[in-house]
């Protein structure tokens, strides 16, 4: 086995392949031999049994007829059967009958043929196959015979087989050797090639040489691994080269650092100096390094304090740093020097080195003694200065106490000022309220005077008085709000507010004023805006009202746009942003910082004609801040202004997250009687549908006609309360249809309303209409028109509820004269003013009107008038626009009630 390991791989492979082949062949041959042996044995057995059967059969008649010669004759005929050596026959009684022996037959006395003949068997003995056979014919036993056949045939076969096996083995050996030589090249060649490449790499040191990688067997893997190894080694060498270069560089650096270090350094190995730098040479006045190299430290460091040497040089441990002060040495010229030694023992590559760093402290010791002297002097001076400082501190303490007293006085003064400010605010609030009452009286009476004077000069004076009083009232109202805020009486009360409804209401409120100034007012809000929020709706209305009023005031053309956006903070809250943008005159950059200051309007208002107290934005800012919000402004002069209000956290009602405003309808709260009928005459179906839809919301039964003929037929069949006629109808225009209707015998004189998109059309004597409705149809305009023409047929539950409250407790207490005066005042002045205010919805004017009414409450002392006034004031304070409108519109109802009271009193 050992000798095998010395062989080359190729030879090992040859030996291996040949051995395996030979081994397999020998095993195979052995198996074949075993099989063949068994087969031949069975064959011989069968052959001899067959022979004995045949001979036995022919011996039947011989035995039957006791024909001995016949038996011999049969035996004679078997002579040519080579293997048959002997035959012995016994008759049926077991007696010997006949036998036959060849000369070559060698009898074996040990074999009892007679006994064997009684059996039916075969076996091998003494190179003979012995077969015993019982002779029977037709189930009759005639006798038995025993035959002896030679076994040579089997032995010959065995010899032949042995020769064949050896021949085959020889051939297989030759073939296997040839095959092994050929096959081993498949394995050994890549290894040989790789070995050659490895030798080449080793010889040349060239790591870029590569073995072939185009094989996919283990040799290929070996080659690829070898190549990877070469790459790694190449990388390693490159890295090592780099490291070595770095080491060389570092060594140079550290060498330079060592050599040129200002600190004198010695290096000792085994107590002998192996290195020292220039500073050390300088310190010890050494001219040549070699003079010291190899010297014992005792020879270099000469001192009269021996114990210092032991501390520095002896009993050292690795990496321990020791420092010795007050070390005295003598240089080459025996000059005495004080040095400080620092020693460090290091262990590198098995060598223990001692590094000694020296510090010349001769000067230091000298200076220390000097410093000691100076310290003494300094201490003396400090003592002196401390005394002076203590004196100064005492003075400062005294001044500080005085300052504290002043601060207390200042705080008291500040509190006093704040209290005074509050008193001022309260005073202003009170005084403003007191001023407002007489001012309303002045205004009221001035307005009354309009009807009593006719001189243009007086009218002009009166107008100035009315204007000034209105301005003054407006200022007072704003001052009241502001003083309320400053007095800390402003209470923020969040309630459930529907933002979109609020936007619609405000839009309605300003639509008339915008229309008058030919401005567009629009609200832009996201469709998924959370609908219901918790916010102080009154203040929100006031904020939007002030900002939009402000925009309308300073905008002559273009638009005013309210942009609403939001940002979800949590699922329950959001940041709400409202921007009021206009295309007005804008604000000068230098004025933009003052716009939120009280009475600042004059500073940045260029037009004297612009009305206002200058408190609107101040109040708005205060409201916004009170509601946890911020207000900011962006403006460009002559281009426009944008005010942005941000409410930092507004709670959202969870039960209704989004408003389906597009599908929601702005439903009026009014309804007509069931019998009310209206006719729409329009050739355009869509227009009819729109108007019909709106009218049906009032509970009006609507009929449609598309031309003159259908219109007349409709009139003939029904009695209408109102007829709407489109101005432009192809065959007959609206005016002509109106004329024909009027001429119809079935016409019941109901109002004929023209509705048109034309802005130039106006009613005059040439037209046959009673009223005008412009397209697109606005709900409030339509409502007013219906209210105007339907009169008592129009009902409003809310107003009726209000009216129900206007019950007169005791009409007996009412002064008749004052009742008549009140009815007269309502009829001549207030009813018209209320209607105008209901339409204009200018909150300042409404407030002024309320002040006027309130100034008369005490005078008239009529309860239902007082209730009406208080209801109106409450609605104004809460900024309930719709409610304000309803109550203002209810002025005529108040008048009717008062007339009823008068009539009742008259009846009494």
């Amino acid at each position, binding site marked *: 086995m050992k000798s095998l390991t010395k062989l080359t791989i190729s030879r090992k492979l040859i030996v291996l392949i040949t051995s395996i082949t030979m081994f397999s062949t020998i095993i195979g041959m052995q198996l074949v031999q075993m099989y063949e042996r068994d087969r031949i044995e069975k064959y011989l057995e*069968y052959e001899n049994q*067959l*022979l004995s059967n045949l001979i036995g059969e*022919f011996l039947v*008649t011989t035995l039957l007829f006791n*024909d001995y010669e016949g038996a011999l*004759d049969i035996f004679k005929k078997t002579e040519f*059967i080579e293997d048959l050596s002997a035959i012995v026959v016994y008759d049926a009684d077991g007696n010997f009958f006949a036998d036959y022996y060849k000369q070559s037959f060698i009898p074996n006395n040990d074999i009892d043929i007679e006994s064997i003949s009684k059996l039916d068997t075969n076996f091998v003995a003494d190179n003979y196959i012995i077969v015993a056979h019982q002779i029977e014919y037709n189930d009759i036993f005639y006798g038995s015979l025993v035959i002896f056949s030679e076994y040579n045939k089997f032995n010959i076969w065995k010899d032949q087989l042995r020769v064949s096996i050896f021949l085959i083995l020889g051939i297989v050996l030759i073939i296997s050797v040839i095959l092994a030589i050929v096959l081993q090249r498949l394995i050994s060649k890549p290894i040989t090639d790789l070995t050659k490449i490895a030798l080449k790499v080793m010889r040349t040191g060239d790591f870029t040489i590569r073995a072939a990688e185009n094989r996919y067997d283990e040799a290929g893997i070996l080659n690829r691994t070898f190549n990877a190894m070469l790459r790694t080694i190449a990388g390693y060498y490159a890295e090592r080269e780099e490291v070595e270069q770095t080491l060389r560089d570092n060594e140079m650096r550290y060498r330079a650092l060592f050599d040129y270090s200002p600190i004198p350094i010695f290096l000792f190995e085994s107590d002998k100096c192996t290195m020292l730098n220039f500073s050390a040479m300088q310190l010890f006045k050494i001219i040549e390094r070699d003079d010291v190299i190899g010297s014992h430290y005792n020879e270099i460091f000469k001192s009269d304090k021996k114990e210092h040497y032991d501390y520095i040089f002896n009993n050292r441990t690795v990496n321990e740093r020791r420092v010795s002060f007050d070390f005295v040495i003598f240089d080459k010229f025996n000059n005495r020097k004080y040095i400080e030694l620092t020693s460090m023992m290091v262990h590198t590559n098995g060598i223990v080195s001692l590094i000694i760093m020296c510090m010349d402290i001769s000067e230091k010791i000298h200076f220390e003694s000097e410093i000691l002297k100076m310290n003494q002097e300094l201490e003396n001076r400090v003592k002196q200065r401390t005394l002076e400082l203590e004196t100064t501190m005492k003075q400062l303490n005294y001044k500080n106490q005085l300052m504290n007293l002043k601060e207390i006085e200042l705080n008291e003064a500040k509190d006093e000022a704040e209290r005074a400010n509050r008193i001022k605010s309260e005073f202003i609030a009170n005084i403003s309220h007191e001023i407002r009452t007489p001012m309303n009286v002045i205004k009221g009476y001035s307005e009354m005077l309009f009807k009593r004077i006719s001189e243009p000069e007086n009218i002009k004076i009166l107008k100035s008085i009315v204007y000034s009083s209105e301005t003054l009232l407006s200022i007072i109202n704003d001052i009241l709000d502001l003083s309320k805020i400053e007095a800390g009486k402003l209470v923020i009360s969040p309630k459930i507010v529907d933002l979109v409804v609020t936007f619609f209401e405000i839009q309605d409120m300003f639509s008339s004023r915008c229309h008058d100034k030919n401005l567009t007012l629009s609200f832009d809000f996201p469709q998924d805006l959370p609908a219901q929020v918790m916010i102080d709706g009154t203040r929100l209305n006031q904020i939007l009202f002030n900002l939009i009023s402000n925009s309308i005031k300073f905008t002559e053309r273009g638009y005013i746009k309210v942009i609403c956006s939001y940002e979800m903070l949590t699922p329950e809250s959001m940041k709400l942003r409202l921007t009021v943008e206009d295309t007005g005159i804008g604000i000068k950059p230098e004025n933009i910082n003052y716009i939120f200051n009280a009475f600042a309007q004059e500073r940045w208002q260029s037009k004297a004609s612009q009305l206002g107290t200058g408190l609107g934005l101040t109040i708005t800012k205060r409201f916004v801040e009170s509601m946890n919000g911020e207000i900011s402004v962006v403006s460009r002069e002559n281009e426009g202004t944008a005010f942005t209000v941000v409410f930092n956290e507004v709670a959202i009602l969870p039960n209704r997250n989004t408003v389906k405003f597009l599908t929601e309808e702005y439903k009026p709260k009014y309804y007509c009687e069931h019998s009310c009928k209206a006719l729409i005459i329009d050739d355009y179906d869509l227009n009819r549908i729109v108007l019909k839809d709106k009218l049906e919301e009032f509970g009006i039964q609507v009929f449609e006609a598309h031309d003159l003929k259908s219109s007349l037929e409709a009139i003939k069949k029904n009695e209408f309360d109102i007829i709407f006629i489109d101005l432009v109808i192809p065959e007959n225009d609206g005016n002509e249809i109106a004329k024909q209707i009027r001429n119809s015998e079935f016409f019941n004189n109901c109002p004929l309303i023209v509705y048109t998109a034309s802005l130039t059309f106006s009613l005059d004597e040439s037209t046959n209409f009673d009223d005008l409705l412009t397209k697109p149809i606005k709900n409030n305009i339509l409502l007013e028109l219906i209210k105007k023409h339907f009169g008592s047929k129009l009902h409003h539950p809310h107003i009726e509820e209000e009216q129900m409250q206007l019950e007169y407790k005791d009409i007996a207490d009412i002064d008749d004269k004052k009742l008549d005066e009140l009815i007269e005042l309502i009829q001549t002045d207030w009813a018209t003013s209320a209607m105008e205010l209901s339409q204009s919805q200018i909150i300042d004017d409404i407030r002024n009107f309320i002040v006027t009414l309130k100034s008369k409450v005490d005078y008239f002392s009529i309860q239902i008038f007082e209730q009406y006034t208080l209801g109106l004031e409450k609605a104004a304070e809460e900024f309930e626009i719709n409610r304000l409108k309803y109550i203002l519109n209810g002025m005529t109802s108040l008048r009717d009630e008062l007339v009823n009271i008068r009539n009742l009193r008259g009846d009494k």
Partner: protein
Amino acid sequence: MYNYFQNIANNNCNYLVIIAFFLLLFIPNHAISQESDESTLVIAYLERFTRFIENQSNAQFDDKAKGFNLYYYGNNTFGNRFEEIFATQKIKNRKVNIRFVDKIEELKDAHMVFIAKSAERDLDKIVEYANKNGILTTSYSNGFAKRGVHINLYMQDLKLKFEINHISAKKGGFNISHLLLSKARIIE
């Protein structure tokens, strides 16, 4: 038997040797050992012949359910040897009925008939009748075989031997084993 030789032929060429041996056995051997008691031997031979003979045309010849009818035709020269011997000896494992007749009509139920020398006059008719009815004919008279008797015994060199008229036997519907034929003298 055919399969037996077939196997021999198929197995190996060495069987040719055995076949040759087999063919040699067909060569007749006329030597028959002499019996001490001639009459007894003749009667015993009659039984031994039936072991190697079958009759396909006469079912009764091999009908094991019935007795075997052995008739003696002509003058009895054997005394009561027939009765004595066949009182215990069976033919084809059947009881043997011995009857002595002298008329051809009486051979009606016979399976085998021994024709005495005295019946030489009726021999042709007996042979014809026997062949017609499948009756095995035997005799112990020279020249009877040539005249159509199936098996005729004769004495040669003091040994009892027999001859077979194979053609006549075939006429009578008898199949005679080659073993018996190999021992007999064949009369053509």
